[in-house]
């Protein structure tokens, strides 16, 4: 399944594959001339590795959302890396190839499905690039339009002033002041007019077209609901009388009566008395 990954110079290729195809001199794999590529990197081993990697990644194209946990995904990534490593360094080539074929058979559906999809990170990148592009385009248009509008508005305004100075009977100072006002109004108008160039390939929800949206339901958070329980305080002392009983039992006779000013704020002498009794009764019994 692999094209031979031996290297030779351009003229040799020309010579060896005059007919367009033939066997590799080093490893005897049948080859086509059109399959030869220009070496991109200084280290030929890297070219070879990248070549292999691209092929492997075509098969092993699972995405992060195909796994339930991050750890599994990372293990998978490592496995892919192992395969690439083995193939480039000629370790266990046969076995690895078998493994790959096995995998390919097993996961046909997923591979097919994922072929068209980009990884999430790549999508992000694409989005950023697009945005950059749009932004710069928009800026360019804006500045251009703005300049034009500006020039035009100025010209019209100037002409109007001249006309008025010619015709109108108002004093020149007033006219000039009016002119100034108008000029500033124009400025603000121009500011407002700046329109947005709407990007075309975004759904109304703001999601990019063609982006994968995770349809998995949001995981439910299991929580125990809060149940109200009556507050119960142990004071380690005799029970304290209720607030409304204090007056009846004559406790309030010994307390300073509240002045009208105090009562305006909602204070009654019972409150203070009640608090004092609470204070006095708590902590009397040994716990």
């Amino acid at each position: 399944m692999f094209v031979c990954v031996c290297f030779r110079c351009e003229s040799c290729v020309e010579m060896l594959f005059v007919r367009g195809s033939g066997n590799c001199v080093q490893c005897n794999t049948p080859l086509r001339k059109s399959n030869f590529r220009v070496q991109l990197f200084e280290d030929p081993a890297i070219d070879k590795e990248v070549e292999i990697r691209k092929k492997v990644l075509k098969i092993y194209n699972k995405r992060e959302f195909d796994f339930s946990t991050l750890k599994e995904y990372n293990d998978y990534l490592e496995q892919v890396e192992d395969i690439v490593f083995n193939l480039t360094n000629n370790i266990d080539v046969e076995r690895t190839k078998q493994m790959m074929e096995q995998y390919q058979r097993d996961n046909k559906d997923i591979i097919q499905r994922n072929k068209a999809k980009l990884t999430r990170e790549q999508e992000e990148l694409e989005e950023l690039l697009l945005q950059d592009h749009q932004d710069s385009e928009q800026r360019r248009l804006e500045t251009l339009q703005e300049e034009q509008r500006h020039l035009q508005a100025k010209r019209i305004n100037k002409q109007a002033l001249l006309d008025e100075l010619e015709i109108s009977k108002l004093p020149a100072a007033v006219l000039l002041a009016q002119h100034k006002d108008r000029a500033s109004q124009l400025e603000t108008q121009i500011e407002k007019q700046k329109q947005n160039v709407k990007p075309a390939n975004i759904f109304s929800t703001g999601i990019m077209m063609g982006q994968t949206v995770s349809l998995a339901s949001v995981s439910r958070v299991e929580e125990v609901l809060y149940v109200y329980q009556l507050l119960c305080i142990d004071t380690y002392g005799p029970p304290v009388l209720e607030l409304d009983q204090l007056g009846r039992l004559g406790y309030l006779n010994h307390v300073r009566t509240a002045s009208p000013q105090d009562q305006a704020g909602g204070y009654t002498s019972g409150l203070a008395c009640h608090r004092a009794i609470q204070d006095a009764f708590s902590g009397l019994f040994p716990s």
Partner: protein
Amino acid sequence: MKLNIDGLLVYFPYDYIYPEQYSYMLELKRTLDAKGHGVLEMPSGTGKTISLLSLIVAYQKAYPLEVTKLVYCSRTVPEIEKVVEELRKLMDYYTKQTEAKNDFLALALSSRKNLCIHPEVSALRFGKEVDGKCHSLTASYIRAQHHSNPSQPVCQFYEEFDAVGRQVPIPPGIYNLDDLKDFGRRKGWCPYFLARYAILHANIVVYSYHYLLDPKIADLVSKELAKKSVVVFDEAHNIDNVCIDSMSVNITRRTLDRCQTNVETLQNTISRIKETDAAKLREEYSRLVEGLKEANVARETDMYLSNPVLPDEILQEAVPGSIRTAEHFVGFMKRFLEYLKARLRIHHVVQESAPQFLKDIYEKVCIDRKPLRFCAERLRSLLRTLEIADIADFSAITLISHFATLVSTYSKGFTIIIEPFEDRTPTIANPVLHFSCMDPSIAIKPVFGRFQSVIITSGTLSPLDIYPRILDFRPVTVASFTMTLARTCLCPLIVGRGNDQVAMTSKFETREDFAVIRNYGNLLLEMSAIVPDGIVAFFTSYIYMENIVASWYEQGILENIQRNKLIFIETQDAAETSMALEKYQEACENGRGAILLSVARGKVSEGIDFVHHYGRAVIMFGVPYVYTQSRILKARLEYLRDQFQIRENDFLTFDAMRHAAQCVGRAIRGKTDYGLMIFADKRYARADKRGKLPRWIQEHLTDGSLNLTIDETVQLGKHFLRQMAQPFRQEDQLGLSLLTLEQLQSEDMLQKIAQIAQQA
């Protein structure tokens, strides 16, 4: 004297105080109270440093729980030492006044090169060598080997420090670099590691910007600094450039070649270790499966300053499976390296964004974004596991890994520019990949985010509002202070025309114009006749200076000038320049007087002070714009326009004016000093340029000194110099620009002081 600053008792170690210092401290106090950030501009020579120190120390003493630490960042080693000496003065005053034992610990921190006391290591010349050698003596596995094999050399100072030094806290006091070395020698401890360990509980730390802004260093040194620290950036007018430099990466062909050797070494080491000690690799592997949880926990519990090279997402995830094992990772790096090499083999300039780069890299060598993002962290782990002794050798691959992480993490704020040759030598192929940061806020964001107050201060920060915009933060106080003067000791003049009425300008179109060059020459000639002692002249660039000086020589102007004064020239070579400087000062001492021709943005313009007779006049020939044709600058300007709505012209003018102000400010280093400031370009007279000068210069620019001819300049200059040369005593200043405590407390003085600070 003891001052009452807004209810805070401040000990000030001098008997007199400038009104603007008082005002400065008031603003500073407000910033600290609000626990916010501040931008403060105060002219050089008015005692910024001591005001800062005395107020913050007083604040620390009064509210030890609110502000636990002061981190003072300066630019150069001499400046750091100056700060510590001021601090020592302050502390001596404290002990004298309160008679209590001082429990303050303050120290300076610098690189190993400045602190090492190991006899062999400290003899090395370059910082990198010292670092590498030190690492090879102190790395943990080297020391472990030393246990089993005592012939393995280790650093006895570090050993001693590690054995004893960590338990015994360094006694309170003020430690300058030399003090640290002395202390280290006496105890036999390594001063560098001692200082690095001690900054964690020191009250005041003085060090260089890079320890906080460069993510690679900050991660090592500053990440555990307490949240409740006050951070001060002094001389911060160039802070945006420092931030940008710390996040940018330049990759040349040589880097890649060195990287190649690194990768090979890695591969060999891995295969060797695999045979001898496979368990180690397995252990690393299982740790990576678990992910970088440790670092994540530490960051969540808010212990560390976050590192922009180590983005948050990484910490929450495990290392991707494709680079988990060592071999795979090396293969990955190889592919990345080859890809970069292929990219550098181009014949035209390419500029692209990070997403474009990532897309291309996926198509060419199948590298995903995610493993790239983990690259720096993964490499670090590998180097640790392999126990590689000389980290300095691996700087190339570390650089590449940083690049990988940055490019995959930030889709905005960076640009990639690949140039096949330098602009100056378009025939020689020298491909460079610039990965340049355009957004200074990325590097400084963690600092603003973490520390409760960050103060940015300098003599030239005008216009003040641009710094918060480009650094992307919200200051609570933004103020500019003027210099109160008993006599107008600075005289800014804008010379726009020669005596022949030809406009003087360094504009590109008229650069080669003979008339302009001649007029510039005449200006210098006339000034050399009337100004006593030293004159410093600044040009916009080295090339421009060379051209002008050459044609001055041809026209015989140079000869005429040399009749009046000696001429010295700054060159790109540091040793030559310092030689020229030394001779220049000698000539000034002699009374013969001299002229120093130097370049804005050069070494002289940034760090050298020309006090008193060393600089009686500064002439700024032309407006020091940056080289606008560079692609990096263009990209940055575009970014500023799109992201921060700062127009290109505004930024360029701002940048040029801050450098011009920096240059002319070299001459005035105090209130008794005086000097002419001559701006020789008619463009300075325009409102947009003039308005961007610091307020303390603008104040003295009257309408009458805007568009002068050389004759008029000479007249004004003569008059000014004669006036200034009269004896000037301290009593003349008292009550006006120098206050005693009683004068300070008077009602109308306080009112006057309130006007000094101008809120922007």
